[in-house]
């Protein structure tokens, strides 16, 4: 390698195309990464970002057909034999993945897993490898965690740090991070991003940061490439890219990721859903601890908090699926609980997060949407009502005959909304209802929700960890931490002037695109 002429780029990807079983998944992808540079690769799910990373590592599925060149310091990795690739992986290029919960082998200690990288590539004694592992774990901020711990004993953020430690154990020239923070809470995300930024600076590594989040790249990357359907549609330095936004797709992405602020409703109606000092314990754990609120007719109430804060438990108590251990919930004056009369349940419905787990795959859409009629008794015009509900969420009457697998994620969430609407409820609980969707689809579903609220006078309890979404759709917001509501207020006020330290931390942690870069592109932003 040293024999080659000095090369300006560390990694040069040139005309990379990948097809798997005849389907073209990457088409003529080309970009360079200079030493020490942070390259952001942005795109929606299925755009080919992760495949690009795997192609660089030489870890594509056996059945794939790859063309083009991937040059690391001038040497083409695509022609290297497997043995040489093994030597390269982990030593020259490190990689971390999206899902820290499953990326570590559950039966080996974290020390062993970090040390393994060292011993694979270097003649190091067991003790030396352990010493290096210790040093690397200290470096990623895990100095308080013993080497003999197992992955299942660590939190998600800690596990991701272990993944980083083993990827940087040998100070590779390039680190590939594939959605490294997507599965993490927003505060943890900031910490991990900070860590990555520091590492790049201190160790002189280049970083290929793959993400769907424009905010993340804006704060991290020196240059950004935008990917769509296996192709790079736009690539530039970060600031220039955001300032110019040459490609319409980039603009659409940006617009969708920054939904318009909500116009406060003109009138506030009577209380529909009330919670009084609700508590729910699991053994010694206080999952929900003294929560009180009132939801009025036509109002949208946000509930924000990180995973494990008690949102899901509260949702189940509000839905009357679990009893409250203390306090009470009432829906239109009726006490809510597992024993409540079925007819009373019809006034409140729910939309869940996972568009794929929300439907029995063996039922037709018509039957799925009609399922809540179980509460009211099936009316004679059930079919017409189903079709009306589908049309209300922007689907066609003909869709009633199809099975769920025929629909995309966004369409499925529309079906879920249609199902929730079929009994003409007053209250809709939206439990992370748009969190699993790509930004553009998310924007469309949010539009449907706003529209329905206006037309039907619905009240929403909108539960989410995504502040931008809560900001866009709710009138009031509650911030939940460890089972308690730490702050409550009118959404805009809470966001502009958070009172609780936790709320402030949450808001500050959300990655943002510098306002100055966006002049003239999008109307609204916060902070």
């Amino acid at each position, binding site marked *: 390698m040293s024999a080659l002429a000095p090369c300006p780029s560390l990694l040069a990807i040139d005309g990379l195309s990948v097809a798997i079983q005849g389907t073209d998944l990457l088409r003529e992808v080309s970009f360079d990464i200079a030493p020490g540079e942070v390259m952001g690769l942005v795109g929606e799910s299925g755009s080919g970002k992760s495949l690009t990373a795997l192609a660089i*590592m030489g*870890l594509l599925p056996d059945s794939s057909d790859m063309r083009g060149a991937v040059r690391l310091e001038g040497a083409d990795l695509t022609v290297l034999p*497997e*043995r040489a690739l*093994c*030597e*390269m*992986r*982990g*030593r020259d290029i*490190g*990689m971390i*993945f999206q*899902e820290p919960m*499953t*990326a*570590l*082998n*559950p*039966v*080996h200690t974290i020390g062993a897993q970090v040390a*393994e*990288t060292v011993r*694979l*590539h270097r003649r190091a004694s067991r003790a030396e490898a352990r010493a290096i592992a210790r040093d690397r774990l200290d470096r990623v901020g895990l100095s308080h965690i013993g080497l003999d711990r*197992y992955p*299942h*004993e660590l939190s998600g953020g800690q596990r991701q740090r272990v*993944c980083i430690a*083993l*990827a940087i154990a040998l100070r590779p020239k390039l680190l590939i991070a594939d959605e490294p923070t997507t599965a993490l809470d927003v505060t943890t995300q900031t910490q991990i991003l900070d860590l990555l930024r520091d590492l790049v600076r201190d160790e002189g590594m280049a970083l290929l940061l793959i993400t769907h989040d424009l905010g993340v790249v804006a704060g991290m990357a020196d240059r950004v490439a935008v990917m769509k359907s296996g192709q790079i549609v736009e690539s530039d330095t970060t600031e220039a890219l955001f300032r110019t936004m040459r490609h319409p797709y980039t603009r659409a992405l940006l617009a969708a990721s920054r939904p318009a602020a909500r116009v406060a409703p003109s009138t506030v109606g009577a209380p529909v859903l009330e919670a009084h000092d609700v508590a729910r314990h699991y053994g010694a754990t206080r999952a929900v601890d003294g929560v009180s609120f009132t939801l009025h007719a036509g109002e949208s109430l946000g509930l924000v908090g990180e995973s494990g804060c008690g949102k899901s438990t509260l949702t189940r108590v509000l839905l009357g699926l679990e009893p409250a251990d203390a306090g009470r919930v009432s829906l239109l004056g009726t006490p809510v609980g597992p024993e409540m009369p079925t007819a009373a349940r019809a006034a409140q419905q729910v939309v869940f997060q996972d568009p794929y787990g929300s439907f029995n795959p063996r039922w037709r859409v018509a039957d799925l949407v009609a399922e809540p009629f179980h509460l009211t008794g099936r009316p004679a015009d059930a079919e017409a009502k189903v079709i009306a509900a589908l049309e209300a969420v922007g689907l066609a009457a003909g869709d009633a005959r199809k099975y769920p697998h025929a629909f995309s994620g966004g369409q499925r969430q529309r079906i879920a909304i249609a199902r929730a609407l079929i009994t003409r409820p007053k209250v809709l609980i939206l439990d992370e209802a748009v969190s699993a969707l790509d930004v553009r689809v998310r924007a469309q579903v949010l539009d449907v929700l706003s529209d329905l609220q206006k037309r039907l006078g619905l009240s929403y309890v909108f539960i989410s960890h995504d502040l931008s979404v809560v900001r866009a759709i709710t009138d009031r917001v509650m911030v939940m931490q460890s089972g308690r509501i730490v702050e409550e207020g009118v959404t805009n006020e809470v966001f502009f002037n958070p009172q609780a330290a936790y709320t402030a931390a949450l808001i500050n942690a959300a990655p943002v695109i510098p306002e100055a870069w966006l002049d003239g592109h999008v109307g609204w932003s916060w902070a």
Partner: protein
Amino acid sequence: MIRALGRRALSLLLALIAASVVIFVMLQAVPGDPAAFMLGMNASEDAVAALRAELGLEGPLVVRYLAWISGMLGGDFGTSYTYRVPVAELVSERIVVSAPLAVMALVLSTVIAIPVGLIAAARRGGVADWGIMGGTQLGIAVPNFWFAMILVLVFAVKLRWVSAGGFPGWDAGLWPGVRALLLPAIALALPQASILARVLRSALLDTLDQDYIRTARAKGLSRRATVVRHALRNAMIPVLTILGLQFSFLLAGAIIIENVFFLPGLGRLIFQGITQRDLIVVQSVTMLLVFAVILVTFLVDLAYTFADPRLRRR
């Protein structure tokens, strides 16, 4: 962990008690008077009655059940009706055949299955995989007694490499004993090895789909090293389950195989016990087998906690 083990042990105890009741009640319903069988066609009524009393076949059910159980606890399995010797003695004579046979079959099936399963998983979709999968399908489909017959026909009768059956006793030396158990162990092991190899292969393929395998590959581990260092231990967990279950199958399979090779083992003891209405033998030996199965299940549970650290601290 100690508490969890204690709870597990308690549920095992309950299972044992339930099993003993089931076995006892069932055997009370078996038709055929052991005393009448022992005395034959021309025996007089009073001779039969005298023998019944002598064998302890009279008295209320509960009393006899309690007598049996308390005896078992003290290591007294009762006295065989037909052999007129303590059942414990019969069992100890025969367990030296059955236990080595089961162990040989288990070891044999494991020794065959692990490399075969590994190769099939490593060569997934390849010719070796297809061949192995086809072979194991065949192995599972062959009834072991039929296979045993064919083995005897080929190796004992035609080739005369080994004897057609029987057991010379360990007094005759280690090798003659092992040799006598070789064909039966093979007949028992082959279908089990097929099952084990398939389970190992699919468990390996499952683990190979896991994210941490990708992490290992990204570290620079070769495919082979990934399988050995990262996949195998995780794949051992379902394999352990099957090994535990196989013990039960081996015990059951041994009954027929011991009959084909006329080995004086526990299985044959039970079978003879049933045909000769030596109910106390059947009762005690069945109980012993159940105990063995439950014990093995418990040991498999323990082995889990060693294989999977996630189960350790709780």
